[in-house]
């Protein structure tokens, strides 16, 4: 559906008409609800047996002014949460989130930012996956279904952010909520197991615990959410904006 909406429309009158019908539809839906009941409330209070819907779109805002150089609490928290252990081979060891230090040679301004799966609305990793293992959940979280991943690593080639890792070694000691195994590709899940329980990702919690508050997690579709208020109030940008991926992870003061 999103794809159709994004297609360039030959007739300039068509989008306006479509918008009108969409808005009219929403109006009717709101009228049909009982007084005092809001659609947003219904979407947030998801029962355990209800599927995720596009009513939510989970995202992350990274404040580059607050992110401290030399601090990698988000990285350690992620490794701890998912049982990620290195094998002394930095080039191939799994890495779901990493700290990147940047310097503007002209001005000498330095930045330190975490880079992770950007949870694109139009994810290149999903486009290239030959089996459908790489997919985007209805609530915007991009995941790998390791049951059907064949380990071809096309997605790793396609990702502009180098956010994905391949597991080369047989693993032991996995955590119950984070199954990981040899021969499959993996990347940040936005702590989907926590999000499904209404909790925040481990990296966000760690950043708050350190008192830096550089990471804010929330629902980009909820106008009352802290994340949405922050992104509305100040300029934010996505990495590689020219690719028009519409990422759910955004950076501010950058």
């Amino acid at each position, binding site marked *: 559906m999103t794809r159709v909406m994004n297609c360039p429309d030959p007739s300039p009158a068509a989008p306006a008409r479509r918008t009108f019908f969409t808005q009219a539809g929403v109006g009717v839906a709101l009228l049909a609800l009982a007084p005092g009941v809001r659609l947003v409330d219904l979407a947030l209070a*998801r029962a*355990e*047996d*209800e*599927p*995720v819907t596009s009513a939510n779109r989970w995202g992350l805002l990274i404040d580059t002014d607050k992110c401290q150089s030399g601090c990698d609490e988000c990285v350690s928290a992620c490794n701890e949460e998912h049982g990620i252990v290195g094998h002394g081979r930095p080039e191939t060891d799994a890495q779901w989130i990493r700290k990147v230090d940047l310097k503007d040679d002209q001005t000498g301004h330095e930045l330190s930012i975490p880079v992770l799966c950007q949870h694109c609305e139009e994810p290149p990793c999903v486009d290239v996956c030959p089996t459908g293992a790489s*997919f985007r*959940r*209805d*609530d915007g979280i991009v*995941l790998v*279904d*390791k*049951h059907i991943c064949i380990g071809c690593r096309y997605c790793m080639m396609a990702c502009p952010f180098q956010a994905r890792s391949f597991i080369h070694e*047989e*693993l032991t*000691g*996995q*955590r*119950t*909520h984070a*199954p*990981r*195994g*040899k021969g*499959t590709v993996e990347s940040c899940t936005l702590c*989907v197991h926590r999000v*499904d329980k209404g909790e925040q990702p481990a990296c966000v919690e760690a950043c708050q615990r350190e008192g830096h508050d550089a990471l804010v997690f929330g629902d980009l579709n909820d106008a009352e959410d802290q994340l949405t208020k922050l992104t509305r109030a100040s300029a934010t940008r996505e990495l590689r904006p020219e690719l028009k991926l519409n990422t759910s992870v955004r950076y501010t003061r950058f």
Partner: protein
Amino acid sequence: MLHGLTRTGGMIRSLVVLFIFALSGSAGLFADVAKPQIPASRGEQCVEPVEIMRRNHFEFIVHQRDLTVHQGIRTKRHSLAGCIDCHSTETAAGQYLPVNAEGEFCQTCHTYAAVKIDCFSCHAAVPTEKISQSP
């Protein structure tokens, strides 16, 4: 000629198979394959009747796995983590034995049936957190 030979060979083979079956019935030729000794489980009752689970447990697990991964449905009734919660043996020292270790719940039947389990190359085979307090 060739056709005739093949047919004779086939008949002889059938007779041999019949003979073995007859033997196994009367003299218990396969009796030395011990039935699996399934370790006791925690919890009062399984989520489905035992006969249904023996035949269809994988249908339940595969169905649940797709719902969980793609739709975020995390009901506990047919979750693999729930199986492991009840079916991993707890030692006197308070340690859990992996369900895919020799003689343990999953492995004992799978050895008997000669079916390889692939779940535990990725999934934890011991409970690392309690998830099925109320199945």
